[in-house]
């Protein structure tokens, strides 16, 4: 599952900066790999939106048998991070003992070496560490672990109290919009 250097550059900068895709029709925020259409409404105009990089670990696993590119890192944690903006991303959680990893932990992103390609080339991307200064107030309900719900609840509702994160003033990279039309260029 190696991504070639060409493939990597074709995929763009997502591995270095943490962003998601905002649907311009319904405003749904999707993971960054949703290039082509919004999985909620089918809208085809999605605009990259930088994330602040803070969120909550809402699920996790420990990988004991890694794919080749991650050999040597095992055992490592891959978590579901529910970002404060509401989007869910899978990412490694590092710098924490396995037994200390808990659902509900506040985490923040950090740029790290992700893996080695088949030619020894190094790929960088966002991993997560425990947030030493989590925001004091948060409205996100605790993980649904105590009370088993009768019906599987939908994704946790987007945090209301979290101030609508204004897009970072100085966006490091110019926002790109991918549309169906753009693809054919």
């Amino acid at each position: 599952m190696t991504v070639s250097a060409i493939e990597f550059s074709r995929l763009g900068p997502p591995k270095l900066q943490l962003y998601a895709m905002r649907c311009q029709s319904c405003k749904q925020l999707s993971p960054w790999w949703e290039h082509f259409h919004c999985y909620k409404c089918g809208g085809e105009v999605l605009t990259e939106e930088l994330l602040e990089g803070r969120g909550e670990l809402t699920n996790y696993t420990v990988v004991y048998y890694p794919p080749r590119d991650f050999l040597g890192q095992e055992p490592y944690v891959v978590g579901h991070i529910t970002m404060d903006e509401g989007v869910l991303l899978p990412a490694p959680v590092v710098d924490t003992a396995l037994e200390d990893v808990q659902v509900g932990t506040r985490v923040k992103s950090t740029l790290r070496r992700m893996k080695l390609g088949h030619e020894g080339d190094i790929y960088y991307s966002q991993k997560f560490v425990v947030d030493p200064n989590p925001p004091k107030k948060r409205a996100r309900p605790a993980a649904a672990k105590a009370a088993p719900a009768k019906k599987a609840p939908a994704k946790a509702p987007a945090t209301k109290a979290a101030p609508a994160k204004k897009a970072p003033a100085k966006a490091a990279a110019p926002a790109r919009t991918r549309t169906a039309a753009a693809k054919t260029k």
Partner: protein
Amino acid sequence: MRVGVLGIGKTPHKIQHSKSLRDLIVEAGRGAIADAGVSPSDIEMLYVGNVGSVGFNYENSTGLMAAHHLGVVPAGAVRVEAACGTGAWALHLGVVAIASGLYDTVMVVGAEKMNDLATVEATSIIAQAADSKEEYFSGLTFPSGVALTARKYMQIYGLTEEDLAHTAVKNHHYGARNPFAHLRFECTVEEVMKSAKVADPLKLYEVCPMTDAGSALILCREEILRDQPDKPQVYITASQMATGTWYAATDTLEDAYRLFNEPAKRAYAMAGVTADDIDVAEIYNSFSIQEPLGIEGLGFAEPGEGWKGAKDGSTWKDGKVAVNLSGGLLCKGHPLGATGATQAVDIIEQLRGTAPEGIQAQDPEIGITACRGGPGAVGAIHIYQRLEGE
């Protein structure tokens, strides 16, 4: 719709260093041809399910290779691929080919030779069946992606790891009695809990092994089988396929439910039966959690209740619906392209009454197979019925 099952064949499911992919295809295929009592020249079309020969075995064009070695040339042949749903998809195309009226007799083969590579390489190839370019950039693998689903399920429905372990206990109970299974040992809940961690919370006995195997079926028009009343009268009466989400990381449990429930509803309508009518089921479980998800998707239990049958006995051999009497993928292994075809062969053996001693259900008449892949991207349902003297 009724499509006759004229013949079935399969190889043992295990590590077979002495056999190549073509050996497995020929062994399973010749078994089905002999069982059907036809000759290779009677085959008008060949569908070969194979996922990864390009990666596992450094060869391609598996369908054409199989046509040559099975001796069905000049019949048409094609290789079919849809992740772990591959074997079921080959079967679907075979059913469609007969149901369309275009062909009288076709052959379906599923085969995979996985043990030519070390586990780390094979794991990497399997990961390519999901979104290896983007989502799995996070270091996820198939086991760990499904482990996330398992933890989510346990959190939401309040299960312990011991609760889930009963599914592995049941599968291994039957797998130990299936001479064609890869892993043939019984285990207790405690032993499941003590087995090595693979992807937390999934443990070794809750994960399928890498397996080499092939399975094959000869399908025919209804009248052809009807005219041979001395042959077992088993027919495929429904075949329905579906897709689901491509990204496992954003899968909800509702997504997992829909993946089987949508095609299952269509299949029940097509066959004119209900979930209550099903006697035996083979449900995809390369990881333990997928069995309860399948039980729920097929309508045998409410969402969140599917795990209970392995604990209370209702999905054991003499329960309300017998699930995975073959030992499931947990014991047979998951030879990717073969699995869907093996599930079919195993259910047909049940309906014929020829399953191995200890795993044959009491006179079942209606069976179902549910194959998933991707792991949330493919859903495949087939229904089988024994229809004597109609």
